[in-house]
C-alpha cells in the first residue's frame, strides 16, 4: 500500500508557466486574425468606395427620391 508521494509544491508556478505563454500566444493570434480578417478588408472596402465617389451625383439621386426635407425633388 505504498503510493508515490504526490507533488506538493510549485503547483501554481507550474500552472502559470504553462498558461501564461499560452494566453499570450492566443491573444496575439486573436489580434492577428482580427487585424487581417476584419480591419484590413474594412479599410480596403472604404478606399474602394471613395475612389470613384461622386457626392453631388449621390445627393441628386437622394433628392429625387424625396428623402430630404431641406430640398424637395426638382419637379416640385
Amino acid at each position, binding site marked *: *500500500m505504498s503510493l508515490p508521494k504526490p507533488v506538493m509544491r510549485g503547483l501554481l508556478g507550474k500552472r502559470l508557466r504553462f498558461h501564461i505563454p499560452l494566453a499570450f500566444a492566443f491573444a496575439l493570434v486573436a489580434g492577428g486574425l482580427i487585424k487581417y480578417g476584419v480591419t484590413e478588408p474594412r479599410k480596403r*472596402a*472604404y478606399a474602394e*468606395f471613395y475612389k470613384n465617389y461622386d457626392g453631388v451625383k*449621390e445627393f441628386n*439621386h*437622394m433628392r429625387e*427620391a424625396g*428623402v430630404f426635407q431641406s430640398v424637395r425633388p426638382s419637379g416640385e
Partner: protein
Amino acid sequence: MFRLTASRVGGLLARRPAAALTAASSRPSSGEVSRPVDMSRPQYWDRRVSPLPDRPFREALSAEDKALKQKEKGPWGQLSREEKIALYRISFQLTYPEMNQSSSEWKTVLGGIFIFIGLTGLLVIWQSYYVYPPQPLTFDEDWRARQLQRMLDMRVNPVEGFSAKWDYEKGQWK
C-alpha cells in the same frame, strides 16, 4: 435551536452531503419517525471540498476495533492491508471513489427543464393568440416594402452594409 429535520433535506434530488449529515445512528429504520439531527454537536460528513470532518464516523467501537486502535499507536508498517482498511472505515464512511460516484441525477434535471420549457411554450402560443393586441401597421408587407425602398434611397450603410448590397444601376440586389 440547531435541529435539522431529515424531511427537509429529502426529496427527489437527494443531495449526498445532506444525506451524510444525518449521522448513521440517527437514520430511521422503516416505520420510525425520523429523529432530528442536533447540529450543535460535531458533525460527520463526506465532502470532497472539506476532507476532515469534525468527528470520526464511528465513535462507539467494539472490542476488536479498540484493539485495532491500540495497535495503530505503534509502527504502522506492522499493520496489515485489511487492518489499515478497517481503520479507515472506522474514521470514515465512504472512500473518495464512493463519494465521487456520479449519479443519473442530470437526466432528471434535464428532463424537468425540458418539460417546463415545453409547458412554457404552450403558454406562449396561447398568449400570442389571445393576449397580444393587433400588430402595429408598420409590420404590414406594404409598409415594410416602402420602408425598405426609403432606406435604399437614403443610402443607409452604403460602404459595407445595407445599401452596399443593392445594385443601383440595375435596381436589384447584387
